């Protein structure tokens, strides 16, 4: 019987290697797998590249990974969000690297990897400082830059419900990056509020089909 549920967040993040690229879903503080981030801190992996929209808040989750010196690089669109002092300190100390990308470029590059494509041309950032150094091409009279697929070794996902196969649903705007990141990593690990029986989720309303999910752990409800 397929059962992707594991008992603890420690089991959920077991095996993450030093140097991994970790996709950290969420938007601000909403839809972030904070329990998995804490477990990853305990687990101890270092030299991580984090892909996220923001750069962590307060002294927990992603912020804690950063302040503990586990993060080598952050790829994000908007580091200045909430109390991002952990990131700011590391940024000023030049102890981590920031790669700034437009928000839609981050999500599309991950979707591109998930879809098995080799890259795409996008008009976003063409002719700007963020497009510098990228291959350009004029298509239908408009300048485009070439964007490569972006892949995670691990994705840390926050969902509401899961079943034992790993089908997922989310709550409202806590969906955000979660479904895209769930598709784009070699190992997709999910913390959920609750498990439901197989067949209980509406097959028309599954947002992340089970094929993208590797491990699920129940952590109870939170935003």
């Amino acid at each position: 019987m397929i059962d992707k549920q594991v008992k603890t967040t420690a089991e959920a993040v077991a095996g993450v290697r030093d140097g991994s690229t970790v996709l950290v879903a969420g938007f601000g503080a909403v839809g972030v797998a904070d329990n998995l981030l804490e477990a990853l801190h305990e687990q101890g992996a270092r030299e991580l590249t984090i892909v996220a929209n923001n750069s962590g808040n307060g002294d927990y989750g992603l912020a804690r990974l950063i302040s503990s010196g586990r993060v080598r690089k952050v790829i994000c669109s908007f580091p200045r969000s909430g109390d991002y002092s952990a990131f700011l300190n590391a940024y000023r100390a030049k102890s981590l690297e920031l790669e700034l990308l437009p928000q839609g470029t981050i999500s599309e590059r991950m979707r591109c990897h998930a879809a098995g494509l080799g890259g795409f041309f996008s008009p976003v950032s063409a002719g700007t400082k963020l497009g510098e150094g990228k291959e350009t091409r004029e298509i239908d009279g408009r300048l485009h830059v070439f964007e490569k697929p972006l892949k995670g070794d691990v994705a840390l996902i926050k969902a509401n419900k899961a079943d034992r196969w790993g089908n997922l649903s989310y709550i409202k705007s806590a969906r955000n990056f979660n479904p895209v990141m769930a598709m784009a990593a070699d190992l997709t690990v999910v913390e959920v509020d609750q498990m439901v029986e197989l067949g209980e989720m509406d097959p028309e309303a599954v947002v992340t089909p089970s094929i993208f999910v590797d491990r699920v752990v129940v952590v109870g409800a939170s935003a």
Partner: protein
Amino acid sequence: MTPEPLNREQMAWRAAQDLREGDYVNLGIGIPTLAASYVPPGREVIFHSENGILGMGPKPAPGKEDPYMVDAGKNLTTLVAGGCFVHHADAFLMIRGGHLDVSLLGAFEVSETGDLANWTTEDPAFPPGVGGAMDLAVGARAIRVIMEHTSKKGEPRILKACTYPLTAAGCVKRIYTNLAVIDVTPQGLIVLELIPGMTLEKLQELTEPRLQLSPDWKVLAPPAAPKARAA
């Protein structure tokens, strides 16, 4: 008499008047967000938030806050009947693919050819942030800007060429300032509206590139205290 510049609510009110029934609209962080409250009563405009909400409503009433409902500025918001949720790649497909009718953005600077600078002032003390600004400046059918006409020091922010790094080139089609409404056209900057007491000459002193007054120009006179829609 020195003309009295519009306040933030009045600027947002003015921009909201141009939103048509049925428009799909993304509102940038700051003054643009206020525009949602000033859509004329009875006019249905559908607001998009880049974090995956289509059909975003007003701020929640006290006691009705939902931690799962945030807007692009991470402020609490609501969903209207007919709204729905999508993931980030689909939210930006809507933006980049030209599905939005209007993107209403804040700006540091706009050039006479519609270049937009609104993502970084290159402050070395802080990391830059771009968020969805470049996506929004590229994708919507109409890109409009709401901004103070000048900097706090009184220097023009409508320039021959932007001094800050560009968000996108040649994208802005209309500018709402606290002094005027200006269209960016292939023939240059056309002033459509001026606040009471403002003249083209005075406005030109506060604007770097050459302005032209539309023959059909109007007085820009929002209500003194525009009435916001109830939550």
